[in-house]
C-alpha cells in the first residue's frame, strides 16, 4: 500500500514538475481564459448603452425636460449635436442613432397634438436596433411620469429577486471559471498522459511493479493539482475584487464544485491521453471537446432560455451540472440540486478513471 502511494506521489511530482517547466504549456492553458475575462471586464462597461447624437431644436420646458431624461438615461451615451453634425456622426459610425426633438415639440405637446420624436437608427443588427427601439419609448414614459397631469395610469411596480443587480462581468465569471477548469484539466492531464507514449516511458511505467490503477491515479492527481492551482488563482482574484465572492457558507459548495469539476476534467484528459497516446490527437480532440462542453453548459448564454432540444442535450453534459452548482452557490446562495450536481461530477470522474485504466490494459497487451 505504502509502495503504491509512493509510486503515485512520484508520478504526481514528475508530471507537475514537467508542467511547471513548460511556460508555453502553462500559458496556453491559462492565457485564453484570462484574456477572455479581461475582454469581458472592459466590454461590460458598454453593454446596454448605445451612443446616440441628440438634436434639440426646441428650447421649451417640455423639450428641455425630455432632453434631461435622455441625457440621464442609462440606455444612451448622449452627445448633443446640430442636425448636420449628427448626420455626420451617424455616417461615420460614431453613433448608432440620432434622436431629434423637433422645433414645435412644446407647441404640439401643449396642444395635445401628435408630437413625434424622430429616431434615426443604423439598423444593421437587430440586437442594437431593438435596444434603441426600446429605449426611446422608455424615456418618453419617464417624461410622462414627470408631468403633473400624467395621462399614463399604468405604473410599473418592480420587485427584484436579489438586492443588487448582478453585473455582466460577475455573471460571466462563473462560465469562464468552468471553461478554465475544463481546458486546463483536459489539456494538461491529456498531454501529460500522452507524453508517456510519445517519450516511450510508458514501457518503464507499465513494467514497474505498481498497479495500473496507481499509474492512472497518479496522472489524475497531477492533472487535478495543476488545474486547482489555476482555479485557486482565479478564485483568489475573484474574491479580492469582489466579482466572485460567495456569501458565507456558500463557499463550501463553491469549493466542492470546483474540486470535483477539476477532477472530472483531469479524468477526461487522462482518458483521452491514454486512449489516443499522441500529443496531436490529444490537442485535436480535447480542446474542441472543452469548448463543446463550455457552450453546451450555457457558457455564453443562459441554457434555460435556449430551445428545448439544446436543454435536452445539456442534461448529458457534465459541466452543465458544475455550472449550475456554481451559479446556485454564488448567485442564489442556494444548495438547490447540489447533491445531484456533485454526484454527476463525481460519477464523471470515476467513469473517466475507469476508462483510463481500461485504455492502459489495452496498452499493456499491445
Amino acid at each position: 500500500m505504502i509502495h503504491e502511494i509512493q509510486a503515485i506521489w512520484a508520478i504526481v511530482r514528475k508530471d507537475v514538475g514537467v508542467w511547471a517547466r513548460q511556460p508555453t504549456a502553462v500559458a496556453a492553458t491559462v492565457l485564453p481564459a484570462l484574456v477572455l475575462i479581461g475582454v469581458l471586464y472592459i466590454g461590460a462597461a458598454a453593454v446596454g448603452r448605445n451612443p446616440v447624437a441628440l438634436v434639440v431644436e426646441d428650447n421649451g420646458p417640455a423639450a428641455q425636460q425630455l432632453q434631461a431624461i435622455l441625457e440621464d438615461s442609462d440606455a444612451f451615451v448622449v452627445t448633443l449635436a446640430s442636425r448636420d453634425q449628427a448626420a455626420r456622426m451617424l455616417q461615420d459610425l460614431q453613433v448608432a442613432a440620432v434622436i431629434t426633438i423637433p422645433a414645435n415639440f412644446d407647441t404640439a405637446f401643449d396642444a395635445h397634438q401628435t408630437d413625434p420624436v424622430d429616431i434615426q437608427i443604423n439598423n444593421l443588427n437587430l440586437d442594437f436596433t431593438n435596444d434603441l427601439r426600446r429605449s426611446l419609448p422608455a424615456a418618453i414614459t419617464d417624461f410622462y411620469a414627470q408631468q403633473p397631469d400624467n395621462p399614463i395610469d399604468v405604473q410599473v411596480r418592480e420587485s427584484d429577486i436579489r438586492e443588487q443587480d448582478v453585473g455582466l462581468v460577475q455573471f460571466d465569471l462563473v462560465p469562464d471559471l468552468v471553461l478554465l477548469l475544463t481546458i486546463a484539466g483536459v489539456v494538461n492531464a491529456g498531454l501529460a498522459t500522452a507524453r508517456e507514449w510519445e517519450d516511450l516511458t510508458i514501457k518503464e511505467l507499465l513494467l514497474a511493479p505498481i498497479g495500473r490503477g496507481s499509474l492512472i491515479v497518479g496522472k489524475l492527481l497531477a492533472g487535478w493539482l495543476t488545474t486547482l492551482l489555476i482555479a485557486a488563482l482565479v478564485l483568489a482574484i475573484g474574491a479580492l475584487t469582489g466579482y466572485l465572492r460567495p456569501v458565507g457558507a456558500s463557499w463550501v459548495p463553491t469549493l466542492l464544485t470546483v474540486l470535483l469539476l477539476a477532477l472530472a476534467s483531469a479524468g477526461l484528459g487522462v482518458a483521452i491521453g491514454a486512449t489516443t497516446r499522441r500529443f496531436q490527437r490529444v490537442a485535436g480532440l480535447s480542446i474542441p471537446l472543452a469548448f463543446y462542453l463550455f457552450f453546451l453548459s450555457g457558457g455564453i448564454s443562459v441554457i434555460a432560455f435556449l430551445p428545448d432540444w439544446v436543454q435536452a442535450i445539456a442534461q448529458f453534459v457534465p459541466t452543465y451540472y458544475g455550472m449550475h452548482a456554481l451559479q446556485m452557490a454564488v448567485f442564489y446562495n442556494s444548495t438547490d440540486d447540489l447533491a445531484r450536481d456533485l454526484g454527476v461530477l463525481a460519477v464523471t470522474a470515476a467513469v473517466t478513471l475507469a476508462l483510463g485504466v481500461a485504455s492502459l490494459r489495452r496498452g499493456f497487451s499491445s
Partner: protein
Amino acid sequence: MLDVAYSLRVIRAVALNDIRSALTERLFTSVSILLPLNFLLLFLLFVLTGGQAPTAVVMDDTGPYAEQFLQALQGARSFTIVRSTADEAQRLMQQGRIVAIVTVPADFDAALQSGQTISLPVIVNNLNVDYTNDIRRAVPLAITSFYAHAFPDQVVVRANEIDVHAQDTGYIEYLSVSIVVVSLLVGGLLQAGTNAAREYETGTIKELLLAPADRWAIEVGKMLGALALNVLSAAVVVGVVVLGLGVRPVHLPEMLGYTLLVMLTFVSLGLLAGTLVRRRTAVVPLSIALSLPIFFISGAFGPVQWGSAALAFISRLQPVYYAIAVFQYAFHDFETTPSSLSLNGLLLLTFTVVIVVASAIALRRRGAAQ
C-alpha cells in the same frame, strides 16, 4: 531566371510536403477542417434566443384592454412570452427559466375606464444585467405602445423611427458572417501553426535551413500548403452560411476575393505563431482558445465604436477587426468601420506582409539558434 525557377520548385516542394504530412495525421487534419464549422454551430447556439427575454405574463384580467396590453408586450420585440398562471410563473422563476413575471391585475380594465392608477407588478430576476435592462426598458415601451393605440389622444409624444437600411438584419444573419471570419482565423492558425511547429518537433527544420533555399521561398511554400488545407474548412463554413442559413452575399466576387485575402492573413499569422512557439502542443490550444477573446473584441456583434473606447482602440490593432468589416460589406453591404472599404483591404494586405516578414525574421533567428 534560374534562381526564380529554383525558388518556385522550393515553394512547390515545401507546400506539397506540408500537405502530405498533414494528411498522414488524419484525425488531427479532420478535426482542424471541421473545427471551424464547430465554431459556427456553437456560436449560433448563443443567438438562438434572439436576445429576447423569456417572460411569464399572468393575466388576472382578460378584458379588451388587458388583451390589448398583452399584444403590446408581444409587439415589444423584447420578450418570449409565456402566458401562465401565478403558480406556474413562480415555478418557472424558481427554476431559472424566465427573467420576469408581469402580472396584469384583475381590475386592469375597470381601473383604466375609471381613470384610476394601476400598479403593474413586475418581478425581475436581476441576475444578468443584459436581460434585466431589457425588461426595465421594454415594459415601459409596451405601456407607451398600449396607450398610443388605446388612447391616442392622451399620449401624443411618440417615437418616430427612421431606419438607415431598408430592412432589418437578423442577429443570426449578422453574426454568422462574423463567425465565418473567426472560423477562418481558427483554421488558418491551426493549419499553418502546426505545419511550422512540426518542423521543429521532428527536427526537419535543420534540413530546411541548411538547404540552399531562400527563407522567403520556404515561408511562401508553407503558407501555400496551409492555404490549400484551409480551403476545405473555409468552403465548408461558407457553404453552411450561404446554403444552410440562407445568408447570401450581396457582393459575390468581393466575398471570394476577401475570403482569399483573409485566409492569407490568418495563415501568415499561424506561420508566425508556429515559428515562435515551435511546439504543436502549445500552438493548438493557443490557436483555438485565443480566437474566442479576439472574436469578442473585433466587432463581431456590431461596430466596435458603439462599445467601450478602450476595446475599440485595441481591436483596431489586429486584423480580425478589418476582416469582419470587409466580410460584413461583402455579405450585407454594411460599413462597420469608420475607415473605408479599400483602406480595410489595404490594411489586411499590410498585416499579411508585415506578419510574413516577421515570420521570415523569426525563422532566420530560430535557424541561427538551431
